[in-house]
């Protein structure tokens, strides 16, 4: 079995980690989940970041093999745009709730942080949908 399918399979694992943790963080910040403690959120965001690194590495691996085909696919470009938005909002959230406020203990979760978290999660889910549709709206898988 070639490396392409393995990369795609690992890409799915990274995706599930990033999107799953992003959803859990949003549910926690909006108090739909009673726990874990808010102090844990920066660590969960860091873990989601490692999931994103796995996604990035495997995604680049797939792109290297079939880049010219992907780059002309509209749905792939839509996915990339959603990934950039999701990653940007997640990094913003991490900088807001992470290291700068670590010394203060419990992160300050205001309406902006909640809205950004929700926006990031929606962008990640959008990227999942677009990623899945690549196979149907182009000749790629």
């Amino acid at each position: 079995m070639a490396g392409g399918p393995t990369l795609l399979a690992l890409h799915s694992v990274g995706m599930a980690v990033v999107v799953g943790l992003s959803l859990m963080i949003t549910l926690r910040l909006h108090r739909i989940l009673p726990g874990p403690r808010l102090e844990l959120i920066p660590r969960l965001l860091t873990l989601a970041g490692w999931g994103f690194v796995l996604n990035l590495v495997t995604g680049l691996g797939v792109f290297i093999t079939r880049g010219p085909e992907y780059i002309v696919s509209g749905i792939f470009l839509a996915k990339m745009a959603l990934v950039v938005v999701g990653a940007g909002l997640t990094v913003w959230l991490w900088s807001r709730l992470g290291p700068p406020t670590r010394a203060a203990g419990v992160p300050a979760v205001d309406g902006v942080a909640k809205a950004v978290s929700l926006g990031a999660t929606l962008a990640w889910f959008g990227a999942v949908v677009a990623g899945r549709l690549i196979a149907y709206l182009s000749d790629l898988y």
Partner: protein
Amino acid sequence: MSASVFQRIADSTLGAWVNSSALIWPTLETIHFISLCVLMGSLLVIDLRLVGFYRERCASTIRVLARLALLAFAVNLATGVLFVFGNTFKYVGNPAFELKLALIAAAGLNAGLYQWRLSHLVETEEVTWGSMAVGCVSLALWAGVIVCGRMITFYAR
């Protein structure tokens, strides 16, 4: 199961419905992937507690997450069954699909072990070797489920 049973599944009304529109299969796959992310997120927070990534009394959180994980799994199961009805012979005899089912069964047994022996731990801040093993095994099994699920296409006849 005999080939005629699989043929009957493939020829069923449900199978015909799955293939009745070009939109149904991609929609089912999208729902399958989204519920997979919900399942993985819920399990990550539960398993990270078991392995000691964080230590706190969180029985109520774990209860909510367990229900969410079960709901997501039910959606995955329902869409997965529809895939089998829609393209039966892509799945029958497919080693990636068979391994995926075996890993799901093993993950179910592992969850049962947690419920039987370790669920009281989340009412404390305790982490044991047993909870770490169950948490690690759960994460590894579900990662394997995702990998096998993505491999099904490449092992189809």
